[in-house]
């Protein structure tokens, strides 16, 4: 009975990691579809969002079933508590990828104001944060989870930078306004994605140590 529960819990953790990998891919490819204005890639990202969504529903269902059937305690309880919150964060990250791919579709036939640099870099930073948080979750690595926290500020700083830059382009030439409005939105999505990656690291830390990290 207990052995079966622990096997099911391990399987569920693997599903969370799979969901996380899909969300991470969606973020990176969403931005790539925008940077390259690659409509086929944008389509794939949009389709993948449905898979992420399905995993969210399935993992939640399975986690609740494990809770109801086994009334787990201690680290098992914390793992299920962490999973139930993490899948919401992962679903949102996947959704940001979707939103960015939609922005790419909206820019079909247009040109970039300038080659995108900061935005792809933000996507790399956010997905690296997410990948480390997932790795920490998978391997119960406290140090790796803690290492994610300070990196959120870097993404925040890039978001501010993109915003200022876009304002400059919009002042320079009113024809840049609609494209720059997309950049500002996309940059904001990436900033939020990094935030959610940090929350996943927080839940991972809670799962490992029981420590609840408060915002200062």
């Amino acid at each position, binding site marked *: 009975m*207990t052995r079966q529960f*622990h096997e099911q819990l391990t399987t569920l953790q693997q599903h969370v990691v799979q969901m996380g990998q899909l969300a991470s891919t969606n973020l990176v490819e969403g931005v790539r579809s925008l940077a390259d204005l690659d409509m086929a890639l944008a389509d794939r990202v949009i389709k993948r969002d449905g898979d992420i969504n399905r995993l969210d529903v399935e993992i939640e269902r399975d986690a609740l079933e494990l809770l109801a059937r086994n*009334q787990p*305690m*201690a*680290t098992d*309880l*914390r793992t299920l508590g962490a999973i139930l919150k993490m899948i919401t964060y992962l679903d949102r990250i996947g959704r940001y990828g979707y939103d960015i791919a939609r922005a790419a579709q909206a820019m079909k036939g247009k040109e970039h104001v300038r080659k995108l640099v900061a935005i792809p870099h933000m996507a790399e930073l956010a997905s690296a944060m997410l990948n480390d948080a997932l790795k920490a979750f998978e391997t119960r690595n406290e140090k790796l989870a803690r290492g994610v926290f300070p990196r959120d500020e870097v993404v925040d700083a890039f978001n501010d930078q993109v915003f200022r830059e876009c304002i400059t382009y919009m002042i320079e030439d009113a024809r840049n306004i609609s494209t720059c409005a997309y950049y500002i939105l996309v940059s904001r999505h990436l900033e939020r994605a990094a935030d959610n990656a940090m929350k996943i690291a927080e839940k991972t830390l809670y799962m490992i140590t*029981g420590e609840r990290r408060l915002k200062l």
Partner: protein
Amino acid sequence: MEPDAIEADGLQAYYGKTHALKTINLRIPPRQVTAIIGPSGCGKSTFLRCLNRMNDTIPGFRVEGSVHIGDADIYAKGVDVVALRRDVGMVFQKPNPFPKSIRDNVLFGPRLHRHLSRREQDELLESSLRRAALWDEVKDRLGADAFSLSGGQQQRLCIARALAVNPRILLMDEPASALDPIATSKIEDLIRELREQLTVVIVTHNMQQAARISDQTAYFYLGELVEFGPTNQIFENPRDPRTEAYVTGRFG
């Protein structure tokens, strides 16, 4: 702050050569529910029974160290064990009503200790049955045989009987393990209510039950007290890996 209700210091217990409790230091706070959990044979029932000297009559049993209840060392010479058990009541795994009426069961203890007028008896009967959440179910048949009650009702009758002598502490040894889920939930509700009036110490094999009803939890293993702390901590984030292994079922 109120002084601890029960204070065990360096308590050792032996059944002949078997060392059943090893240097137990435990302070049980008053007017709270303290649960004792642990695998079979870990010493939890032995510990509970040490708190009102129920082990005394077992041949070869002896204790070292001390147990204080209030200010009194209950293992000191000259302690009146009958008075101790009036102060520290006990409820067992299997309901054990006397083969008497409901009324006589409840009033059995008080009548031993003092003379009561008919009115005092009626009042005590009603208040004890009410405290045990049984009054409404039996008020019209107080003269009926206790064995005519269901198992859950019999257990609440035993609790009413224990409460009738107005103890400060109630010890419960797996009080719901022989009951169905509905009777169990009534007993659990009752325990939560009783903590406002007295100190409850409960031994249970059912971890979820300990998690539901207790304020403090003690984990015993191989005669040792491994961990004692607030119940939410013991079940959410235990400090000792042995407790962790037990509560998550990764045991042995």
